[in-house]
């Protein structure tokens, strides 16, 4: 008897759900049809417009400039502040800013889905490099924004001589170390570094901590040997084409040696996550971690009783940290002309108005990249990046030029293999080379 009732209920819900689904399907389909009719004459821009209006109801494309824009971006740390900024922006200019949330992990997929369905945001973020290259046809030329000329050199994402992406900030990463445990001045070579790892292990500490997340496991640390090449992008292409074997390149030999020493003298990164990596460092169990200035926020919950610094990964005598633009703003070229204008106005305001720059510097805690902007409230790690920037001891982020999905799909398995077996460094480098060749085939 009971079962019958339950069955009936289940059937009922299924029916309801299907009715609802059909209900949703109807209007969307209809708008899609009207879209194609409108769009047939006026190409894609009209289609984009149609998609937008059907998405947010009230016609946003009436009049000269849109009174509502949608911002979708991947940096989850600033989501709350961005929402506050949206309110301030509406107060100052009357234009409503809708901020779409994301968990960060699947941001790029969500963005692609939305853009592909003509329901994309007006302003969005991408990692300059492979990502922005792939999305090229969706990006609007931003060269005419007034502050573009004042951006720090090489920071703007340029394509074919046009500025398409406005950088958020610059982020530096390398060896974040505990000044009371390590003397960074003494770390000049791979051997110095390996000696340090040995000493720390004898003292019962981990010399350098990594963690199992793809970029913290191998992505970031692998950037150094690539970025040290004369022309990293050409070098990556040569590896992909099979012309260069990483095993034969000195920087990579040293990198593998260091990675091998990590396996011997430090904890297994596959057993740690980001929280543990940072927690161990904050509580003095690790002398250093391979991280960047972004991880300062992780230390907020700890009473840190030591000073920390940022040092280069000293393979082959490297004395530079990686400093690069992690993400940049882009405007959706498929939105209506009014919305594009509103999107540009938003970026203009963000980088030039008092309120906007105040948010960039104080609320987001960004390292300034526009001439004349200054930030006197930087956290200690970001402050540690500045001297490197000023003395030019920085290298770019070669990993943004890796084939799409490279780090997660191809590099992580190799690193996992390395840390779970006793693979030799030569085998490790061979597998890395193969990974690039395979990843390159697909693209």
């Amino acid at each position, binding site marked *: 008897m009971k079962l019958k009732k339950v069955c009936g209920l289940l059937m009922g819900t299924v029916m309801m759900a299907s009715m609802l689904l059909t209900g949703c399907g109807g209007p969307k389909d209809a708008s899609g049809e009207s879209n194609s009719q409108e769009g047939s004459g006026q190409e894609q821009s009209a289609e984009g417009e149609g998609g937008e209006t059907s998405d947010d109801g009230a016609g946003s494309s009436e009049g000269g400039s849109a009174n509502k824009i949608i911002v979708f971006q991947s940096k989850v740390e600033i989501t709350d502040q961005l929402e506050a900024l949206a309110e301030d922006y509406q107060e100052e200019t009357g234009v409503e800013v809708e901020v779409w949330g994301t968990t960060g992990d699947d941001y790029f997929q969500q963005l692609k889905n939305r853009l592909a369905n003509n329901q994309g945001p007006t302003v969005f973020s991408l990692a300059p490099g492979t990502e922005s290259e792939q999305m090229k046809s969706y990006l609007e030329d931003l060269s005419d924004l007034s502050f573009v000329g004042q951006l720090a050199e090489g920071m703007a994402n340029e394509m074919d001589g046009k500025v398409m992406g406005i950088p958020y900030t610059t982020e530096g990463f390398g060896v974040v170390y505990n000044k009371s445990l390590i003397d960074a001045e003494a770390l000049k070579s791979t051997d110095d570094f390996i000696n340090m790892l040995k000493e720390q292990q004898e003292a019962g500490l981990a010399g350098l901590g990594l963690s199992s997340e793809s970029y913290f496991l191998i992505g970031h640390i692998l950037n150094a040997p690539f970025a040290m090449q004369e022309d990293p992008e050409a070098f990556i292409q040569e590896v992909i084409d099979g012309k260069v074997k990483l095993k034969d390149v000195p920087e990579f030999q040293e990198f593998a040696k260091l990675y091998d020493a990590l396996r011997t003298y430090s904890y297994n990164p596959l*057993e740690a996550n980001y929280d543990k990596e940072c927690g161990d460092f904050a509580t003095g169990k690790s002398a250093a971690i391979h991280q960047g200035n972004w991880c300062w926020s992780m230390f907020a919950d700890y009473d840190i009783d030591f000073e920390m610094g940022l040092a280069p990964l000293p393979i082959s005598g490297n004395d530079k940290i990686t400093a690069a633009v992690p993400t940049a703003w882009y405007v959706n070229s498929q939105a209506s002309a009014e919305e594009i204008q509103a999107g540009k106005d938003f970026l203009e305001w963000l980088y030039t108005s008092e309120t906007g720059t105040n948010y960039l510097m104080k609320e987001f805690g960004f390292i300034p990249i526009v001439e004349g902007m200054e930030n006197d409230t930087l956290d200690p790690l970001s402050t540690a990046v500045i001297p490197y920037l000023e003395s030019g001891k920085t290298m770019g982020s070669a990993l943004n030029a890796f084939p799409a999905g490279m780090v997660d799909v191809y590099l992580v398995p190799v690193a996992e293999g390395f840390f*779970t077996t006793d693979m030799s460094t030569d085998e490790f480098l061979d597998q890395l080379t193969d990974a690039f060749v395979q990843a390159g085939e697909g693209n």
Partner: protein
Amino acid sequence: MAKRNKNLKNFAWYALFVFPLLFVFATVVLIPFVIGVGYSFFSWDGLPLNPKIFVGLDNFIRLLSDSRFLSSAVHTVIFTLVAIVTINVLGLAFALVVTTKLKVRNVARTMLFMPYLIGGLILGYIWKFIVGDAFASIGETTGWGGIFTNWLLDGKLALAAMIVVATWQMAGYIMIIYITGIQAIPDDVVEAAQVDGAGFWQTLFKIKFPLLMPSFTICLFMTLSNCLKIFDVNLSLTGGGPQNATEMFAMNIYNEIFSLNNYGYGQAKAIVFFLIVALVTLVQVSITKKREVEM
């Protein structure tokens, strides 16, 4: 006239119930499927403004030499074979236990069914903690390092962990189907067998199992297709690691499409995957159907 009206009325009633579902089925299954078959002949990254290049059967030819796809096939086959056995044996055992006159049978049913309600993604994260951190620290404190190590760091053990979690999730669900099957067996048949002197095992194998064949058909079909298609547990528990040792079919396709942006090639993989799942399950159903007995 009246008859025609009645026919029309009947038709309207059928339509009322059938069309909504038919519409949904067509829009979310049939049409995308056909479009998907079309995409599998292109090299494309999924963005409408980017070029679609017609490559004919190249995507399918490339599949044959894709070592990673082939090894994911091997993992899926091993996983499926073992998991089908464990899920069905456990599910059937549970069903036999909770259909006896056990006092706690209703509570037991609920508890055994519970894991299925939690959902694979969350189960995966829970078990990731158990077979990872918890096992490692049990091993450290007790010294039984043989079993209690971090299972997720070893390819074979990670696959075993996948099987354990899938079994834990599915066994309760399969149990419910077996329960209905067992309850449908008339008591007189079983009693007659017992009067004739059949013991527990004889009743089980000679009377209950033949009469349970319809349940076997359903359960094997469900476990077979679910195990071949497994994705959620795979994603949250092992993420395909270590070293791709637990990357299943579905995950390989997901990575190809969403991480590597090879929409067309991934679509080709998905078509092949569909054909395999359809073929295997059809063969299984036709075999077990033949062995069903009519009362």
